[in-house]
């Protein structure tokens, strides 16, 4: 039984302004196994964030099924923790408070909360910052806090919605390496949405490539890179380059039909 099973997922909605029915997600099926890092990649407007929202339980699909651990998804749950592009940290809580939040919600006994939270803060490299508030952290650190917050709940699958898009290029590289390291140490199951091909290939075990809307799975590409991964090695690796080129060509025809980022509500 796969950790995450998406089967013939379809999402339609009515555009409030044009009164047309828009099919954001046409027919998408794929699975994610336990301990896998899967990137969901596609041009702007292909509905990848919509798929994530449906898996997270924030939206309901028009048809098709989403199952986590064999059970249908009916709403948000700590089983499917989300790392947001906007960070979504609670500004009035400290770094520690943010991580402890999920533990409190799950009823973890008071005396266990801090040690557990501490552990995850160390994992993401934020130990020493427990008493700080999110606005006192840099963008990169804030996102790491977002990751720690989700991991502390030991979710079945960690959903990441273009988490590094709000961060500058240099920090992004660093965060990608940090994320890979965390992944390789802990092996959570990860569903990672992005439009950046190089990011997807670097991070993932497999890349689900989507077409433009109405989206369907063009291909699921297995990334032939060994772990542990580092950017320096990847950039020099022919396997890496080949995979990136392959996917780039696959998407090239679709780029011209992509929807401009600021109109993309999916």
């Amino acid at each position, binding site marked *: 039984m796969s950790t995450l099973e998406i089967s013939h997922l379809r999402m339609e909605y009515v555009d409030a302004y044009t009164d047309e029915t828009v099919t954001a997600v046409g027919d998408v099926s794929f699975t994610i196994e336990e301990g896998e890092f899967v990137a969901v990649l596609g041009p702007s407007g292909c509905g990848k964030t919509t798929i994530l929202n449906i898996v997270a339980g924030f939206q309901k699909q028009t048809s098709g099924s989403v199952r986590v651990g064999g059970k249908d998804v009916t709403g948000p749950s700590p089983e499917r923790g989300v790392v947001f592009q*906007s960070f979504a940290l609670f500004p009035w809580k400290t770094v520690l408070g943010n991580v402890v*939040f999920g533990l409190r919600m799950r009823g973890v006994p008071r005396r266990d909360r801090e040690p557990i939270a501490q552990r995850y803060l160390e994992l993401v490299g934020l130990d020493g910052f427990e008493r700080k508030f999110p606005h006192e952290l840099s963008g990169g650190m804030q996102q790491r806090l977002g990751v720690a917050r*989700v991991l502390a709940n030991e979710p079945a699958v960690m959903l990441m919605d273009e988490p590094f898009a709000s961060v500058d290029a240099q920090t992004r590289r660093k965060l990608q390496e940090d994320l890979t390291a965390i992944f390789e140490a802990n092996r959570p199951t990860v569903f990672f949405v992005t439009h950046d091909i190089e990011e997807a290939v670097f991070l993932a075990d497999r890349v689900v490539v989507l077409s433009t809307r109405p989206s369907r799975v063009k291909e699921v590409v297995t990334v032939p890179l060994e772990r542990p991964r580092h950017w320096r090695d990847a950039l020099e690796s022919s396997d890496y380059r080949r995979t990136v080129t392959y996917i780039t060509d696959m998407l090239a025809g679709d780029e011209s039909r992509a929807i401009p980022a600021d109109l993309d509500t999916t």
Partner: protein
Amino acid sequence: MVRTFGPFVPVVLIWWVIAEAEVFPPDLFVGPGTVLAEFRELIAKGILPAYLSDSFTRLWTGVLFGLLIGIPAGFIVAMSRWARRLTWPLLLFFQAIADIAWLPIVIVWFGFSLTAVTFVIVYTIVFPLMISIVSGVEEVPKDLVRAARSLGAGRFRVFTDVIVPGALPAVATGIRTGLGYGWRALIAAEIIVGTSGIGFMMFDARRAGVVTGVFVGMIVLGILWYALDALILAPFERGTIERWGMVRTAEVGR
């Protein structure tokens, strides 16, 4: 201390000079010395403290009820889509009816009484407060709500742990606005209805043609509100906003 009161020194000096030079007729304009003397006398006679306490009592009774009604009502309306749809236009409209305008009908209902005055003050506070809370709740970033839910928070917890802290700046602003209107309504009510209170005192002095009493009343009021706003309300508002780590771009001169 010096920074707060220092700038007033030259103002008081200029005031003193204008009064001494009798730029305006002395029965219409008095100097700081006269005002101070009258102030002392009113305190000694116990008049000022008595009136002040009357005004205060009315104000705080109204404020208390206003908060007790406004805060829960505000959140209830904010959290329910239907309640909002049904009441938002009404809220806007009732907010638009100047609180003072309720005095006549309230007098018809309750006579010239404390109840009448309290009603008006409660009214002044409830509507700005509710409106502020409703927009405050709406402005809580939806990602925060989603984050909380995907961390296991049920609806009740989302309310207590995300919505309420998130809307706190709006509550603070609403209280501040409401109070600003509230004490003004009180003064007007005291003038119109009153048998006691600072508003009454000022109008009474005016009736007797004693401008000093009016000056004393105005300065006492000004100092009290200034102190309340600058020392308690504004910092509270700013504090709630700073808990968010947000920097508001413009302070509202209220």
